Every structure is written in C-alpha cells, then in structure tokens.
C-alpha cells in the first residue's frame, strides 16, 4: 500500500505529476487551482526528479510551452481554471492538430466571463466538443474524489501517449479545494532520452541524428487532400477511443426506474441523492461517466431499455444532458431526459436533486413511460 495522506485535490495533482515522472509543468496563477503550481514550487521537484516547473507570463504562453515540450516527446502538463482554459484554446487546437500528447487540467469555476471563483461544471461543452477551432477531440477524464485526482494524472499521460492526443482532467473548484484521504502512487522515473527515442523517436523533435529524417511538428498542411486525410486519421483515432476507452461507474442501477447521470463532484452529491430517494421508496440509480470523451453511449442505450427517465445533474444550465439525449435517441428510445443543476458557483444539495427528480418526472412516477411527448 502506498503512502496515505490527507491532501487537497489541487495539491494531489502536483504530487501525482512528480511521482508519475512528469518532465515539465507550465502554468499561470488563477483561482481555484493556484495550489497546483504553489505545491510544485514548494516541492522543488527539479532537485528530486529533474522535473521542470515554470511560471509562465500567461495561459497563452503556458499552453505553447506545453506544445514545445510535448513536441520533443516529453511528458508535460499545465493546469488552469475556466477563463485560463479559454485563453489556451488556440494552443490546444494546435496540440491536437499536431498530434501531441500532453495533460491539461481544468479546475472549473463559474462563468461566463470572469464569473465566479466558486465551483462549476459549465465547461463541459468546451472540454468534450473540442473547445478550440477545427475538428478535434480531447480525451476527457472526470475525477470524483481526491484519490481519482491522483490516479488520473498518470492515466491521462498513458492515454495521451497511447493516442498521441491531448488529455484533459475536467474537475472543479470543489474537488480542487477539498481534502480527502489519498493513497499516493510510488515514484516512477522520468523517461530517459533513450526511452523517449524509442517511444517517440519517429516524430519528436529531439535533434536530428544522421540516422533518421528530420522530424517536423506542425499542424499546417496546405494540400487539402492531405489535410482531409489527416482529419480522417484523427476521426479514426477518436472512434477507436470510443470503442476502447469508455470508463464509467454504476451505482444501484440494476433495478432503477430513474437514472441520474452525473460526473465529478456532482456525482458525489448524487450518490447521496440516490440513498435519500431509495429511503423514500424511489428506485433511483446513478451512472457516473468517468470519461466524458469518449462518452458512455452504450451503457446509456442499455439503461434506456428499462429506465423511465434520465436526469442529468450538472453544475451548469444543461450541457451533458445533450449527449445523454443523443445516446437515447440513437438507441431508438423515447425515454425522457431532463436536466437539473445549480449554476454561478452554487452546488446543488442531495435533497434538491431528489426534489427535482420528483418534480420533473411526476408524469412517469404516476403513469410510466409515455409513447410520445
């Protein structure tokens, strides 16, 4: 068993980065995630593992530093919160277009604009639909505990390198600021130059030896036929992720009439809502998507065969609910899909979720599934 600690989600992100052999972190302060860089600077990993930590002049610079490091085959990451991620959008698109692996952490806060520093889940669309320009996808992981904040750093890098694609940990201020018991991973050494050559030598800019052709990291292609072929290749990659990398968790779904779908800190709240609802005799279950892209369509289709309704519970005005509706539609079902969520930094309570469920599905609670609406 690894070392047990009581840590904040933000602190754990930093510790996990050091321990998984991350080569570089580049970031810019923004609430509620500044502890990530503060923890790294206090830990001074450059003395321990050789990891580079640099406070950049802006989020724009941070993400382009990540682009540079990733282009050289290094394990690099940045973290920010919602407005900062918007600033990074161009760079993220370049990284996806150049097929580079990296980790981006979004500790979400309420928006739009400067919004609030309180937690939110309103960047779902931005995370799972691309966020920047062009047809691309990020691998998006949504931790629901401080332990998963720890575990998903290493997992993100693993997936990012497997697919040569940027990965994002989409979390929020609540998980970032919360302390929980966490079992830290053992230290993994950083990759040596030889290991990088072995893993990424065919594409990374390591300095051109006479034994190979030059490597060029670029997303530019003026020949439309090649550019279209590149896009097809990207789409194939995303399809493969949808086949192989979907992760989710089910809680009391076996006999459930109603399925709450929630991720991240909202899913924690909804777990309690399920307990409350069941104590009132309502058969409610919880589907917690762990990967937001790829989205767990198949299990939704399967659950839709029996469920009388889905309730998407997000700290937003309703974003993931659209993906649930698509999954239900594509499964040829007419199960009703509703949304409930507080915004602006307010976190819904378990009781509010149960009330919303009873209110929004009053018809189904009384009569069952309608044939048409």
């Amino acid at each position, binding site marked *: 068993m690894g070392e047990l600690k009581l840590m904040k989600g933000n602190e754990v992100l930093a510790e996990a980065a050091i321990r998984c052999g991350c080569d570089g972190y580049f970031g810019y302060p923004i609430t509620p995630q500044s502890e990530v860089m503060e923890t790294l600077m206090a830990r001074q990993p450059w003395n321990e593992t050789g990891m580079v930590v640099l406070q950049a002049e802006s989020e724009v610079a941070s993400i382009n530093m990540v682009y540079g490091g990733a282009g050289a085959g290094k394990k690099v990451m940045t973290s920010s919160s919602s407005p900062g991620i918007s600033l990074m959008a161009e760079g993220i698109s370049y990284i996806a277009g150049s097929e580079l692996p990296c980790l981006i952490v979004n500790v979400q806060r309420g928006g739009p604009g400067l919004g609030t520093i309180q937690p939110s889940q309103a960047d779902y669309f931005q995370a799972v639909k691309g966020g920047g320009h062009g047809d691309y996808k990020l691998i998006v992981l949504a931790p629901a505990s401080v332990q998963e904040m720890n575990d998903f750093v290493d997992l993100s890098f693993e997936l990012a390198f497997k697919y040569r694609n940027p990965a994002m940990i989409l979390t929020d201020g*609540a998980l970032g*600021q*919360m302390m929980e018991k966490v079992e830290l991973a053992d230290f993994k050494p950083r990759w040596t130059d030889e290991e990088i050559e072995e893993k990424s030598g065919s594409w990374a800019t390591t300095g051109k030896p006479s034994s190979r052709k030059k490597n060029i990291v670029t997303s530019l292609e003026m020949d439309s036929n090649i550019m279209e072929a590149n896009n097809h290749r990207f789409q194939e990659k995303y399809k493969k992720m949808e086949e192989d990398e979907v992760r989710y968790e089910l809680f009391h779904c076996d006999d459930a009439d109603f399925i709450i779908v929630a991720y991240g800190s909202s899913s924690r709240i909804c777990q309690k809502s399920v307990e409350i609802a069941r104590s009132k005799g309502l058969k409610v279950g919880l589907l917690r998507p762990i990967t937001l892209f790829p989205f767990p369509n198949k299990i939704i289709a399967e659950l839709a065969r029996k469920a009388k309704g889905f309730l998407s519970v997000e700290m937003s005005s309703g974003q993931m609910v659209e993906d649930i509706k698509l999954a239900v539609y594509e499964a040829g079902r007419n199960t009703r899909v509703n949304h409930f969520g507080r915004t602006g930094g307010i976190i819904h309570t378990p009781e509010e979720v149960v009330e919303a469920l009873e209110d929004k599905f009053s018809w189904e609670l009384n009569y069952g599934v309608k044939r048409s609406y």
Partner: protein
Amino acid sequence: MTEEMIIAGFGGQGVLSMGKILAYSGIMEDKEVTWFPSYGPEMRGGTANVTVIISDTRISSPILQQFDTAIILNQQSMDKFEKSVKPGGTLLYDPNGVLTPPSRNDINIYKVEGTKTAIEMGNPKVFNMIVFGSYLKVRPILSLDNVEKGLEKSLPERYHKLIPLNLEAIKKGQAIVETVQEV
C-alpha cells in the same frame, strides 16, 4: 459509522485546522475522510466553516445540508447552522462568541468555555484544541492515541514540539465541557 459534521466560526479561530486534525485522526483510525472548506472571498475576514465527514465506508456527498454534529463558535454560524443539526444530533458551542444560545429541544447541546480557558492557559492559540477535546468527550469516535498521531501528521515538523501542549488542551477540553441538554 458515519459522522457528518460542520465546524463554523470566524477566520483565525482555527476552524479549518481543527477540521484537518480531525480528518487526519480519522485516517489514523483507518476511516474514510473528507474535508470541505468554504473558500474564496467569503474566507477573507469573515466566517469560515468546514464540513468534515468521517466514515467506515466510501463517502458520498461532501456537500451537506444536515449534520450529525455542529461545532459553532460565533453568532453568525449559530444563526446559520443550528437548524442544520439532525434531530437527535449534537451541537457544541462556545458561549463567548454566542449571544443567543441554541433553543432547539430535539438535539443534544453542550457548551465549552474555550476562549476563557485558552486565555487562562496563557495561549489563545490552543482554543481550537480545547473545543476539539470537548467534541471528543461528547462524540468519542476517535481514540486519543490516533488523535496524537493525527496531530503529528497534520502539523509541520517544526511545530511538533507543540504537540504536548495541544494534547494538554484537548484533555482540558474533555474535562470542562458542560452538558446543556441531552435528548
């Protein structure tokens, strides 16, 4: 066993660190723990509160409306959280910062003269440990051995010389807590 509690008072009273020591002591007892603070501008010079959950099983929501125990250290927090204690639950408060004492009759109420005792002990900083001791007396969910280990884990090494003083304050708190009503 699941203990869902809130500790609420002014910033500077050691609310967050009391919660942290509690949570760490829980880990020493091999339990699941969650520590969820109020954060941001509401922390600046105003009230501070932290939700701590200690449980034998996986913890669900870190955000709660109802608590098994509330430790209340100022009037604002009394106004806000007295009503959030579950019927049959526990409310512990320091009368020093509370003008209107709790009035519910369906909960256990205890009071501790924490501020006064801390001044008598010559160190206002042990205030939160006195209150913590009183809590442990009325809700004996953690052993003193594990609390000591929790202190060691949560305090930076340079403060370890203060552990005996903290333990003394905890014991003092255990001794001086007064029962107002038990249901």
